[in-house]
């Protein structure tokens, strides 16, 4: 299962990391080299292994339905890159580029 340059492009897209064109081939090589070692695992017979999902088989501890939550020493506006009126702002989504500004 060799990782191709196209795989790197696809995975980088999924991971939302811009990768320089010039790095694509070397990254494919690096990932291949690492994954090559992983192929070792194919030797292990796991047909009858019951995979436990997560550690701790006793089930998860649940929380009662009341507050207060763990507090914040400062409001989001103090650490978010851009805020207005309490909202966190981001560049407008591509799907809504055409949205007009609502009349005040």
């Amino acid at each position, binding site marked *: 299962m060799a990782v191709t340059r196209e795989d790197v492009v696809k995975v980088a897209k*999924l991971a939302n990391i811009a990768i320089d064109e010039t790095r694509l081939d070397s990254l494919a090589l690096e990932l291949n080299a690492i994954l090559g070692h992983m192929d070792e695992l194919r030797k292990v017979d796991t047909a009858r292994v019951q995979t436990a999902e*997560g550690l701790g088989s*006793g*089930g*998860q501890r649940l929380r*009662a339905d009341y507050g207060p939550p763990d507090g914040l020493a400062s409001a989001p506006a103090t650490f978010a890159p851009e805020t207005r009126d309490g909202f966190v702002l981001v560049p*407008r989504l591509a*799907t809504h580029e055409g949205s007009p500004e609502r009349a005040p």
Partner: protein
Amino acid sequence: MTAVTEREYEMVVGLEVHVQLKTRTKAFCSCSADFGAPPNTNVCPVCLALPGALPVLNHHAVELAVRAAIALECKVHETSVFARKNYFYPDLPKGYQISQYDKPLAEKGWLTIGELENKTPVRVGITRVHMEEDAGKSVHDRYNGVTAIDLNRAGVPLIEIVSEPDMRSSAEAGAYLRLIKQILSYAGVSDVSMEEGSLRVDANVSARLRGATKLGTKTEIKNVNSFSAVERALDSEFTRQVALLKSGGTVSQQTMLWDGARGETRPSRSKEESHDYRYFPEPDLPPLALDAEWIARVGREIPELPDARRKRLVDEYKITPPDAELLTSSAGFSEYFEAVARASLDPKGAVNWVMGEVSAAVNAAGVHLDEFAVRPADLAELLRMLRDDVVSHTAAKRIFARMVETGKPPVQVAAEEGLQKVDDDSALAGWIDEVLAENPSEAARYRAGETKLQGVLVGLVMKKSKGSADPKKVNQLLPERARGPS
């Protein structure tokens, strides 16, 4: 709405319904799940996805989800597993949604639609009910060129109810949704309001030649915000697909957005980056282990569901099946009815008043039934007053109107407004004398033997008494007062 008449093709519909569970706090943190707070104030390290924060599941959310699953006849698994659904969206703080994937909370349920509409019953399979968290809210049209994010809703607990593709028309889809809403509302699981966003629907629809067994390629319709919009969107999308197929084209699997203003679906403009959610078991949450005994207890404690209630109302109160059906369309009304019927011992009167006056007044006031000013005990008292002839029917309606405005008990309203039936001879005699004096020509004709004027004169007396006069008594007294003082 124009029904789609299509002889060659049939519509195949499956629905995914997201329902917000009625908890005080969010699914994985103790922030308030209430709506309406200023943006980004019901937030904490967990639902903001600050580095290092971890989820802890809300016990009550699990209980409500299990209740919903049992109400929908599902098998609840003793072990279910939370999974991460990975995708980037600015109102999804962690970059993944905590959901359930290959080991959901519950599977294999069903419900039956059509019974109420007196149609052939259709059994719709429920594939699964799983728990997940809501995302935040993106506001696109508030500020120029930017999207505004509010995370107050992020992490609110939801269940997703996935149906089998068992519906064959938009009407069936509508019936399915109304029934889901009814059941979940009865079970006390959710407010199930599409307007308030506590119920959301995505519809999967495909078209195939009648008689075919293989499913056609489906599209998913999003952005529908009412049950009737779901029905219209399905018809519109089905028509589009059929036209495409008839012209030799093929349907491509994609997400369609419903444009209610134009009455058409159009392809979502979001780039179709192949949705690869990279689901894997959520390592921050051990499997959810539910004790069989606990599941059974939650099942036993589910409040009465609509079907059972309909049957019981007919049995217990001897009301007609159509009345029972009307009453049970909402859990609140049927509960209100029962309270009135029990306290007044007048089920028939209770049906008429609850479905008539109460329903109209609640709608006019635009309030929830539990905020309605007239409590069942007070309405029952009014019905007793009617039965005991303490007030006339006309007066009762006026009293009720005042009760809606003031919330006062009927006895007090009747006293304040002078609306008790007046059967005291001297008062009645006074009103009759006045009417006779004010209408001399009618009085004369009446005295002359024109007895058909009796009704007119009684009516005038009733009017003068503002409805409080006892008409029976007026009828008795009128001839004697007309003859003149004895």
